[in-house]
């Protein structure tokens, strides 16, 4: 499999090669890789790519996937429109 063409993160268009290169350069936690590549910052919030990245880190560092930490899931889980939130908030004013 050609890792240059393999997309790990579909939200932010990150390839497997980019992830592997960063791990080689010493970025060996999910948090570090996320900050450099935007992996996990898109609409899916890392639901798809998270495990794939952890598997790569695990393969390179020898640490088990269980030991590795995934990022915080930030609220909200599904996209809500801002004006709907505003309307609701005004009702409570």
């Amino acid at each position, binding site marked *: 499999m050609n890792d240059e063409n393999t997309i790990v993160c579909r939200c932010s268009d990150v390839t497997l090669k980019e992830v592997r290169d960063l791990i080689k350069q010493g970025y060996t936690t999910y948090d570090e890789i996320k900050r*450099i590549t935007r992996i996990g910052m898109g*609409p899916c919030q890392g639901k798809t790519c998270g495990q794939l990245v952890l598997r790569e880190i695990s393969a390179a560092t020898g640490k088990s996937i269980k030991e590795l930490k995934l990022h915080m899931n930030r609220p*909200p889980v599904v*996209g*809500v*429109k*801002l004006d709907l939130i*505003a309307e609701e908030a005004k009702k*409570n004013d």
Partner: protein
Amino acid sequence: MISSAEIVIIGGGISGCSTAYNLAKKGVKNIAVIEKSYITSGSTGRCGAGVRMQWGTEMNCKLAKKSIEFYENANDVLEYDGDVEFKQEGYLLIASTDKEMDQFHENVKIQNKLGIPSKILTLDEAKEIVPYLNTDILTGASYCGKDGFLNPFLTTDAFYRAAKRLGVEFYTYTQVLDIKVENGRVKSVITNKGEISTNIVVNAAGGYSKVISDMVNSELPVYSERHQILVTEPVEAMQAPMVMSFSLNLYCQQTPHGSFMMGRGDNREPRDLRITSSWEFLEQMAKTITEVLPPIGKLRLIRQWAGLYNMTPDKQPIYGKVNEVEGFYLAVGFSGHGFMFGPLTGVIISEMILEEEPTIDASMLNINRFKEGNLILEPSVV
């Protein structure tokens, strides 16, 4: 871990990385940066990463101008493989009262005198730049097309990599627990991974600056305050500049990636180190944005997060030595705008440590200004 270092820098944010880079570039060997989590895990990785020259005090104008000049060439100067993504699409500052417009007029005068290309705009002119701006609630605006924003992770990564190439040692996931002082001098830094003896320590710990200063019993007149941001789904490019208002309490920009990022302050926030997200922020932000920039209210929220502002009494940073301990330097108290000063922070602190002729005389930003009552209040912060 090394057992001794020439200089130990506490904090792997923009301030710590820029300071390490500048010191190493000037030939200092044996520098260690200690970061309790990963690089940019503090405020730097949580910030809006906006950089503006439209300030109300001369000092802030000068620091911001020099930093922006640096950012214009950052990829080359730092020999970065990637791109720090500096976009100079301007800042549109909007006013909602006549008094605020008077302040803008005064600020623009100071800015122009220092060579900053800002100007006052009428509401019609402001609408030409952001057509969907709700000018019904506004009294005027000021604008500087050279203001902009960067990618905070990649910008810090550029400093980090450049410093590393120059031999700086970075210890991530390593926490400073204490600092030993002997006969009024810094002696060593104790971390959870070992002890490093050193004569010079730089406190660049962001929101945790007071915790670090407490370790050497040096009083620091700062507090930390949570500030929150939210980001929407990405959409087509529709807004070039950052839109910011002090009186309406908001800033909002579209990132190169297409999402909108926005935040506001809240002076009822508790003064502590919490960085959880609140529902209340979300509601207030949603109301403000729907009123000021109505079409943005139609966008879906993707996520929100929080970080710390490290506040000083005059909302300008503290640079330099302390009175109680020899060898202890401060690069703290950025009051919500330390990212944009990052390049200059490193220059200033390295010059202070090496006792060189200053690029910008920032001596008035020393810690004694609070005791001596030499505060120069910055009027223009969110």
